[in-house]
């Protein structure tokens, strides 16, 4: 297990190196420099700026020095927000995005697992069809549509909840969390229904039933662990999805998190900010994928055995 984990971790390093290299050269081949938007800036000033940001050196030299900085955890200064470096901007946005993603995940897991397990307990009845139709609606209702509709209904027509901000007015975290979490609740409901259906048809569940155990105990003690493996394996990709989903949700609700920074940096052509954030977000996503893989293996004795055999 540890060897497997270390092996996967070692695999992540070349992937990260590819990410850094590709992003760096992609950004540097972009037409139009970061300062081209400010037309009033005289050429001497641009030259001075370029010198300050090492843009006048040959590109491979810029690349090597950047790589060296990144390895030490320094993403350099931001082009657009003068006087602030990328590390500071990431540090400012990260707690907000992390909190948003956490609440969204909470919504997704609690609603999704509850609906999915409930559906699997009575397949092909109303208890199955109603939540599964709801899940389908959740999948077909993307966050950039659901968010504005929720704002329209609960924020504007009913005037129950604030329509923007994060942590300024009580209750302003509710709509963004639901907006971001709903799609994942839908996927998790479908996955946990499928996983539970498979587990509930296994012999050991029949044995448990034959012993006369009550159904809730069978579900909680025996079936959930196996039935939720697909959900655990989905957590890694879901996390990546939550991060990119936060681009939209933070834009809709004007939340000053990483996602909004990223989209703004994209529009501003803020080279170093995009570069730094891409590397940072990629690292996060790769690590979370690794974690959810590990967790899925740890939960599944069959896979554990296979890995032991392979070593």
């Amino acid at each position, binding site marked *: 297990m540890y060897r497997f984990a270390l092996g996967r971790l070692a*695999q*992540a390093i*070349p*992937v990260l190196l*590819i*990410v850094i290299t*590709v*992003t760096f050269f*992609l*950004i540097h*081949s*972009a*037409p139009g420099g970061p300062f081209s938007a400010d037309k009033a800036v005289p050429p001497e000033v641009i030259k001075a700026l370029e010198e300050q940001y090492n843009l006048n050196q040959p590109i491979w030299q810029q690349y090597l020095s950047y790589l060296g900085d990144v390895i030490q955890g320094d993403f350099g200064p931001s082009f657009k927000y003068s006087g602030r470096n990328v590390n500071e901007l990431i540090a400012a946005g990260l707690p907000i995005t992390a909190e948003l993603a956490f609440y969204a995940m909470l919504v997704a897991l609690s609603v999704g697992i509850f609906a999915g397990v409930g559906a699997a307990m009575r397949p092909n009845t109303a208890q199955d069809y109603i939540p599964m139709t709801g899940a*389908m*609606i959740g*999948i*077909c*209702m*993307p966050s*950039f*549509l659901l968010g*504005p*509709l929720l*704002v*329209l209904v609960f924020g*504007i027509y009913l005037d129950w909840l604030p329509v923007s901000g994060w942590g300024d007015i009580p209750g302003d975290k509710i709509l963004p969390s639901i907006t971001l979490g709903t799609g994942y609740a839908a996927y998790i409901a479908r996955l946990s229904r499928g996983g539970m*259906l*498979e587990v509930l*048809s296994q012999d050991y569940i029949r044995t448990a039933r034959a012993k006369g155990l009550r159904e809730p105990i069978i579900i909680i003690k025996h079936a959930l662990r196996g039935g939720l493996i697909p959900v655990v394996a989905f957590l890694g990709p879901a996390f*990546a*999805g939550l*991060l*990119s989903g936060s*681009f*939209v949700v933070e*834009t*809709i609700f004007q939340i000053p998190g990483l996602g909004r920074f*990223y*989209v703004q940096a*994209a*529009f501003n*052509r803020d080279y170093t900010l*995009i570069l730094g954030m*891409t590397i940072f*977000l*990629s690292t996060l*996503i*790769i690590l979370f*994928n690794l974690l959810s893989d590990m967790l899925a293996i740890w939960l599944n004795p069959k896979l554990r055995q296979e890995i032991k055999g392979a070593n």
Partner: protein
Amino acid sequence: MNSIETDKGSSLWKDAWIKLSKNRLALVGLGLLVILIVTSLLTPLIAPYGYEAQNLDMGATAPSLQHWLGTDIFGRDMLTRIMYGGRVSLMVGFIATAVALVIGILWGATAGFFGGRLDAIMMRIVDVLYALPFMIFIILLMVVFGRNILLLFFAIGAVEWLTMARIVRSQVMALRNQEFVEAASSLGLSQWTIIRRHIIPNTLGPVIVYTTLTIPSVMLLEAFLSFLGLGIQPPQSSWGLLINYGVETMEEYPWLLIFPGLALSLTLFALNFLGDGLRDALDPRTSKD
């Protein structure tokens, strides 16, 4: 037993059609999709107004007999806008999926058929690509190279082929060791002929299913990017872009948000139900229970 074996090919499809035709939701999805495709193809002929037609004096109006879905702030007919936007959205969905399909099938079939070292290297590349956060990369590509519709097709297709390659590979690997493939090769058929005549037709089921499910996820990706302003650019229009405009004025003119949203959701609904139905009908593993 033998007579069943000989016409297995046609009976699989007949079986599948019988199963599919019993699935009412899948049929509704299929019907909606056909209507949608026909409408998109005929849009220039049947759209109630011209694409460029606007009436600034009229501005945004609620749905009426003249404008069934109302008009936007420039007095443009919403039904017309949604029809033209749907053409772009569907086109992105189909073309990007086709790109993914071609790359995925070629890659997966090659790896699965030849096996060994080549397979190990090819699938290692897929693993590495899987670990990359593609959403971020597509945004990056759109920023760096401008918001070009061809690039969008390519970028989305380049992301979605990975799963296809894995599915095709595992199918091909399972097929490669079957007796009928051995028989074909002992009859002296070339490897290419075997791939074309025996391997590819037998992998079609899962490929069709996954294709049907890829189209909605591609359309969603396009709408997502267009909503952020990083996808389709005006004067072209797509449902994601219409939703983006709709959000800006939703307090005064909610129908400008609701109708394009409904169009997108219904289409995703149709494709997902059809895909689920096809999976139940075509994939023997999932149709057991």
